[in-house]
């Protein structure tokens, strides 16, 4: 692997860049741009890429509704959600030191689901649906704090965190089922579509508020990301290197919850992205945590974008939830993961 050592301001600042990382980053961004354009032009009403560009850079009346009102917010939301889920999974896999961890598996997503379904069943027709994201984020946060408190015993170990997350998640899932069974058909199917994860009917308001939520965890990740490489070497080594392990673990967990919870709040449960994106990223650029953050974000965004593109164009006139397709990609991926590790 080729590295560039960067020493700036008379060696007051120094960094190391790997060439592979930079190449991957640029390729990823380019690919994202291509799919972005493709997503804007494809659909029941095809718009040629040139028209899309014309629309984006100087308004044409012809496509304003299709592009600006329908597709652009949806595509941007897909990118944001994918990035958030990917990074959330990356953080969790690093904290738990297990490649199979992800926000859907350790219970954050089920907390958000429960919050949202509770809101849908109780508040439909009473309170505006604009508060649904808030309910979901609260659900995710409450669940995560509950999991954290229950797994606390002079500190939190990864194994306990995962197992208790799974237990809580089982209870919440049956809570969701309970709510669904007792609501009437209209509400149940509405909640169900939300649960499966759909980007249908995304609005500019969704895009704006999700971006705001995603800005909160960013500083922590940037400032503490450096220590994550050491933490992955084990608790003992981390402490011996001078890391305040419990504080770090708490902050990162909070970040992961905010990322996954707010993503789930806007589009429901899109599963497997949090699991896949970090793996692909690691395979591409190796193991430096802070370097992995942008790459994972791009890959997560790509995954959700492609899944949504397939979901809304392949089965026209049906608009299938993107979550089904992330799961469809997730399956072969899991098998790939299996064989890759086996051959080694």
């Amino acid at each position, binding site marked *: 692997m080729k590295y560039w050592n960067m020493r700036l301001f008379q*060696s*007051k600042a120094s960094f190391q860049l790997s060439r592979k990382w930079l190449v991957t980053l640029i390729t990823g961004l380019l690919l994202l741009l291509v799919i972005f354009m493709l997503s804007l032009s494809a659909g029941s009403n095809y718009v040629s890429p040139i028209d899309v560009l014309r629309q984006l850079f100087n308004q044409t009346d012809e496509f304003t509704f299709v592009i600006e009102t329908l597709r652009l917010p949806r595509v941007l939301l897909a990118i944001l959600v994918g990035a958030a889920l990917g990074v959330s999974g990356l953080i969790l896999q690093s904290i738990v030191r297990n490649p199979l961890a992800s926000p859907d598996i350790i219970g954050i997503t089920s907390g958000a689901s429960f919050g949202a379904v509770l809101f849908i069943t109780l508040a439909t027709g009473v309170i505006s649906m604009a508060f649904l994201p808030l309910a979901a984020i609260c659900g995710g946060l409450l669940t995560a704090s509950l999991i954290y408190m229950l797994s606390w015993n002079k500190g939190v170990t990864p194994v306990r965190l995962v197992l208790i997350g799974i237990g809580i998640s089982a209870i919440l899932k049956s809570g969701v089922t309970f709510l669904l069974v007792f609501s009437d058909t209209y509400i149940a199917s509405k909640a169900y579509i939300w649960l499966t994860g759909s980007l249908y009917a995304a609005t500019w308001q969704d895009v704006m508020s999700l971006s705001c939520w995603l800005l909160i965890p960013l500083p922590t990740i940037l400032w503490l990301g450096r220590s994550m490489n050491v933490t992955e070497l*084990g608790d003992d080594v981390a402490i*011996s*290197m001078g890391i305040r392990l419990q504080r770090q673990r708490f902050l990162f967990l909070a970040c992961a919850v905010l990322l996954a919870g707010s993503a789930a709040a806007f589009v429901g449960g899109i599963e497997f992205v949090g699991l896949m994106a970090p793996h692909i990223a690691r395979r591409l650029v190796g*193991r430096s945590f802070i370097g992995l953050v942008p790459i994972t974000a791009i890959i997560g965004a790509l995954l959700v974008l492609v899944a949504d593109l397939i979901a809304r164009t392949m089965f026209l006139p049906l608009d299938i939830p993107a979550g089904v397709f992330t799961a469809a990609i997730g399956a072969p991926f899991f098998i790939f993961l299996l064989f890759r590790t086996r051959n080694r």
Partner: protein
Amino acid sequence: MQGLQTKGLTLQYGNQTIIDCLDFDIPLGKITVLVGANGSGKSTLLRSLARLLNPASGEILLDAQKLHSMSTKQIAKQLAILPQGPVAPEGITVQQLVKQGRYPHQSWFQQWSKKDEMLVEQALEATQLSALKDRPVDALSGGQRQRAWIAMTLAQETPIILLDEPTTYLDMTHQIELLDFLFELNRQSKRTVVMVLHDLNLACRYADHLVAIHNKKVAIEGAPEEIVTSQMVEEIFQLKAIIQKDPYFGTPLCIPNGKGRYIK
């Protein structure tokens, strides 16, 4: 007073006392080896010296400062520990692992200074891993892997290095190779090495200072040739043994009594 000391140190797991009210000093610039029977608490003691375990009562002093009042990053510049059986994340290369040792010395703006680069290279060279630096750690042999971890603690550039049973799972060749390496390290750069070893004969050969843990206390400590006697072995390990001089090194050699083939 420089170096590591304990004052009235009591260590507990749950309600079980492992070490009871212990006062002792680790001599600076020497190799100290902790020995004792299984479950005597030697690893526990070592872990507490590296703040991996909080004392139930009493103090640990590092350069006359209370360990728990120092910032953990400050301690990390003074003292490194290699825990027992560390596991590297999948796919991490030797060089990446060793680089992590520089963490306590880096800051957000100084992530890869010239000094970092130099020390990592030195550590790789000293452990003879330069040729393997781009290999994944999980593809190395047991001995090489252990050396990679030691290279990481070397890159941490601390005057004191603690090692918890560094020779476990290594075959005889690798054991000797590793201990030789630590010996050289101590003799050349005067670093204080503290380790837990199982093999009393190897401990006698390499240790300047031997500490025997028994009954929650330091039963006896001193140069091996002065303290290792058949009486001592019987007290610490409940094993009858003859102590002789090693025919080559002259250090104490412990020959356990018992059964076996006997050739006149």
